[in-house]
């Protein structure tokens, strides 16, 4: 018997079950999605993000989003993901912003030296002030992780109420990328005398730019 079979047999024996014995359906998922107006969602997201120490920006156009990023990063150095939204808004062409990485070693090197990492976000969750990022060729994982400041651009239409709505919209996150990460505020630790310290391993600051102009976001 292989170690796998022996292992599974041990589990079955403990449970008094036979191989392939049918399983009743698990309890139905428990999801409840409150009805909240889009304007209230934005306000709620802002409040929760700011309570965590994040910085909230609301812009009406892509041009404004680009100006906002420029104000934050100055001359950089910054790394932007390959997300089409950032390209279209002109963020990837800003001075001091590097983008278009297709190879990991170069991306890693740039992220290690960057002061800012700029990404899109697939969704944001208002109840907890959370960003939802799926990894993809357009969104590398290290950009929201290595630089000390993370800037994310998200369309207002991608604002969800909370994790229940995310679970309803994306019931199978594994189908969308090798990694889904929920980012709720800056990196933090209270491991020393329960004193809050930001930016222990991940970014110490997070800026979220919510773009209200929906029609031009794919």
């Amino acid at each position, binding site marked *: 018997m292989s*170690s*796998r079979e022996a*292992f*599974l047999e*041990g*589990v*079955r*024996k*403990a*449970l008094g*079950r036979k*191989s392939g014995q049918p399983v*009743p359906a*698990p*309890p139905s*998922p*428990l999801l*409840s999605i409150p009805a909240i107006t889009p304007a209230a969602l934005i306000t709620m997201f802002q409040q929760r993000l700011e309570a965590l120490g994040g910085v909230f920006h609301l812009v009406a156009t892509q041009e404004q989003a680009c100006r906002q990023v420029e104000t934050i990063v100055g001359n950089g150095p910054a790394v932007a993901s*390959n997300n089409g939204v950032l390209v279209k808004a002109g963020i990837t062409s800003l001075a001091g912003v590097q983008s278009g990485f297709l*190879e990991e070693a170069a*991306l*890693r090197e740039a992220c290690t030296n960057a002061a800012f990492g700029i990404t899109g976000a697939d969704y944001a969750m208002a*109840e*907890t002030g*959370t960003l939802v990022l799926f*990894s*993809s*060729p357009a969104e590398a*994982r*290290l950009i929201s*992780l290595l630089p000390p400041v993370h800037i994310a651009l998200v369309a207002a239409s991608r604002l969800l109420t909370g*994790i229940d709505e995310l*679970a309803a919209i994306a*019931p*199978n*996150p*594994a189908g969308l*990328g*090798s*990694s*889904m*990460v*929920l*980012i*709720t505020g*800056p*990196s*933090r*630790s*209270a*491991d*020393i*005398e*329960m*004193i809050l*310290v930001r*930016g*222990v*391993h*991940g970014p110490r600051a997070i800026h979220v730019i919510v773009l209200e102009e929906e029609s031009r976001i794919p």
Partner: protein
Amino acid sequence: MSPEQRDGIRQAVGNPKLQLALYSATARLLEKRLEAVSSRQLPSYQQLREQAHQLKRHTLDHLDHYIVEFESNVIAHGGKVVFAQNGEEAADFVLGLAHAKGASLIVKSKSMTTEEIRLNERLEHHKLAVVETDLGEYIIQLAGERPFHIIAPAVHKTRQDIAGIFQKELGVARDEDPEHQAMIARKTLREKFLTAGIGISGANFLVADSGAVVLVENEGNIRLCTTAPRVHVAVAGIEKLIPRAQDLAVFLKLLGRSATGQPLTAYTSFLSGPRRLGEVDGPDEFYVVLLDNGRTRLLADPDKRQSLYCIRCGACLNVCPVYRKIGGHNYPWAYSGPIGAIITPQYLGVTKDPWLPFASSLCGACAEVCPVKIDIPKILLDLRKEVIERSPGFSTSAEKSAFRLYAWLMKRPKLYALAAAAGRRLARLPFAGKVGPAAKWARERELPVPAAKSFRQLWRERPPRTNQ
């Protein structure tokens, strides 16, 4: 209890600095938890607890099915599942992998499961460098200790202690500012993340329908461990399985709130395999080591199987009057507090540390805060029964006689009243608590002064009931 264990407990209880740190940290976590699960913040809290309990129950009752489903989904996404009966097999797998990849440095995120199997020790024995990357765990590793609390491993260290540890172990200038200390760790560990060949994590949840490992954290070290090295290995007990990704909505709402009072921790990673085609970063290889190490023994007992429902939030530690006095290091195994008191005897055998299920006042606070509704006091009682049956010398004949006498008295109300009155008088004498069996008990405690009037007396004197 061994003399060393007794000494350890005396030292903890007699150390005012430790008592203050322990009391204030647990009180703070409790306070934040209470607010986060309040009806104002989370009106569906009780419904969520019940759902979490039912989901865990369903999964563990049919665990063979979910292990197979999980495995097939991991494989579908290009990962691999490794089955380990015990810590040795888990370590052997990692050793073989490190050898094959030529990896000499391993970065690790905090994992109670790897503490349980002493994975670091086993790997270091074979000349691998294993670096803990959670700030608290890193401090503990440098100090050569084991975690004091499931979620706050270095809660017993002051900033002065840490300044000394960093100065000695890292050769940096002494600095007592927690923020600076965190930045020292960030800088030192950043280099390790970027050069390590393998990243090892635990798992908070294993999602059967996705083949995914879910990890929650606040610092970002888990994201780094699972993203930067070429190889990611997650080591997890089989009890971490849940059926569907959608069920995370329930468990994540409970876990962060119960642990630290956070609706969601800073990072929740849902990892389903190595990097996909076209993805720029992420590991090339993804392994999940599924560990038994005694878990099937717990599964085989339908009454105590619920001990495996635990999601390791640590709320039962914070609320436990015993943990809050003796701290984490005085529990004999990796798991401390009420959950440690019920799982340790079941994993290691009830005769190994027979005193453990008795180190509880059965106040029930642990069951009240448990987000997955494990009936810890009931399991403690079952384990006490097992200890008495299987550890013949554990209960002394004097103790047995005392209980027999008590049972005999309880059946004779008049005699009982007389004995109770005598007891009340005795307990008020100046030498009470200084002689006899009470002296041993009172050495670390204050002997409570009995109430002036007994319950029966109060009952007789109560005002007559008026019908309205």
